[in-house]
């Protein structure tokens, strides 16, 4: 105490968490432990498909081997990479626009009751409007072009992002908000250090569900009004009853989206929530 320092001997319930205990809590069900289970799950799905195709013995249900061979042929031909690239570009543009618009509007509506009262009826209408109606109307009003395609997907997806982020903004801890006020933290500091970490789980949930829904809507948009992309190719093969082609394009794109989620979204989410695992 001679230099004004306090020793640590008089703490009630001091050190409730040792480093070992913290590390032990960090070892949860995530990580490599579930990889074999996931692999087994995928293999069982492929096996079921293969057995079903053998049992059906019909061109309407080709086996995995035929589908892979078709996809390989389309890959070498150049049609598959081009269509995939075009669809991916639309998915990325629409996903980014929907996330941005939905997040900003959702955050503002979560923070302001008045703004919520203004925006909410629009969102309820948008949520209940069939995607097909949105796509058709956008094509009619904007024209059969890529702007309309991306806009239609954004309008269809942004409301679900809005709802998720609005709930996150409503759940922001008011005690931390008071802390920011009394210490006069700048807006940038509040957003970065206090609000963003609390909103991250909501953003991650919106992004993961958003990606899955966005690419499905993009395919509908392409099927209805674009001269290229995976949706266009599916329409082409549908008209010729080429089930192998439909499955090849559908599976390749689903695998790409699965990889995007596994390689990009899940690690981002894990990193953002790293402090929860340490806690």
């Amino acid at each position, binding site marked *: 105490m001679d230099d004004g320092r306090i020793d640590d001997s008089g*703490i*009630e319930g001091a050190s409730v968490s040792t480093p070992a205990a913290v590390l032990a809590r960090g070892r949860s069900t995530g990580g490599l432990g579930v990889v074999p289970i996931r692999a087994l799950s995928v293999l069982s799905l492929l096996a079921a498909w293969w057995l079903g195709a053998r049992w059906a013995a019909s061109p309407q249900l080709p086996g995995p081997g035929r589908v892979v061979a078709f996809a390989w042929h389309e890959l070498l031909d150049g049609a598959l990479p081009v269509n995939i690239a075009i669809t991916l570009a639309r998915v990325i543009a629409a996903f980014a626009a929907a996330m941005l618009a939905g997040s900003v509007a959702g955050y503002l509506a979560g923070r302001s009751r008045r703004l919520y009262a203004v925006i909410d009826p629009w969102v309820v209408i948008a949520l209940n409007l069939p995607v097909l109606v949105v796509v058709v109307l956008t094509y009619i009003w904007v024209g059969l072009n890529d702007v309309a395609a991306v806009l239609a997907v954004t309008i269809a997806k942004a409301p679900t992002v809005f709802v998720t982020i609005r709930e996150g903004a409503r759940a922001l801890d008011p005690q*931390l908000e*008071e802390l920011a006020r*009394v210490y006069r933290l700048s807006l940038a500091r509040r957003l970065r250090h206090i609000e963003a970490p609390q909103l991250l789980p909501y953003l991650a949930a919106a992004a993961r569900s958003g990606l899955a829904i966005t690419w499905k809507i993009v395919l509908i948009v392409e099927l209805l009004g674009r001269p290229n992309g995976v949706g266009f190719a599916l329409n082409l093969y549908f008209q010729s009853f080429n089930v192998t082609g439909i499955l090849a394009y559908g599976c390749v794109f689903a695998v790409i989206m699965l990889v995007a989620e596994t390689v990009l979204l899940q690690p981002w989410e894990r990193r953002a929530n790293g*402090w929860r695992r340490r806690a």
Partner: protein
Amino acid sequence: MAGDGALDIHIDAKAFAVPCGAPRPVLCDVGFTALPGEILALLGRSGSGKSTVLRIALGLDRDFTGHVRMPPGRTGVVFQEPRLLPWLTLTENLRLVLTDGMPVPDLADLLDTVGLPGVADRLPSELSLGMARRVSLARALAVDPDTLVLDEPFASLDRRLGAALAAMVGERARRRRAIVLLATHELEHALAISDRILVLSGHPATLAADVTVPDRSDPRALDGLRDTLLGRFAFLGADA
């Protein structure tokens, strides 16, 4: 009228809304002024409105009649709950409140000063409540405050540690000529560091006493004040 650097509070009335009922008055005619370098202890029963006075002083509760004038400069705050950001390490929690242009103290040294050496890189979840409260105190001191508002900062600590921290806070505040507003239920903490003791009592609470603490080098005078306060406000003895 108090000078520019003073803390001036006068709460004519403060009531809390009650669902389906008339508002419940909690504070009535509570006013005081604190000059730079003055340490004020606010004593009262649990639920007497001490925290409400502090929230009004900090501008976090504007639903009252009266006026508040906080002195200019930086304010350090210890809330009843530590309010640490769970995703930031302790050092990052302290650094967060250091806004641009503010001198940056040695944060590890500051944690050491409140009795927490070697914890700078830990997360708040790795601490006990008592330790987290001390980090909250270190954060309040990190801004080198002109005004320090402390709401039961020594709760969850044993008496010896609480007294040591109270002495450290008092010594720093006097050296800095900071105004300290300390809400506590511990009469001994108040007697140990404060220049004035304010007691809230009654329903709604009023300022039942505003007494100057005598020179601490005169134990008889201090004992006399202790006896007077305990005689008038028995609840202070019950908590002690």
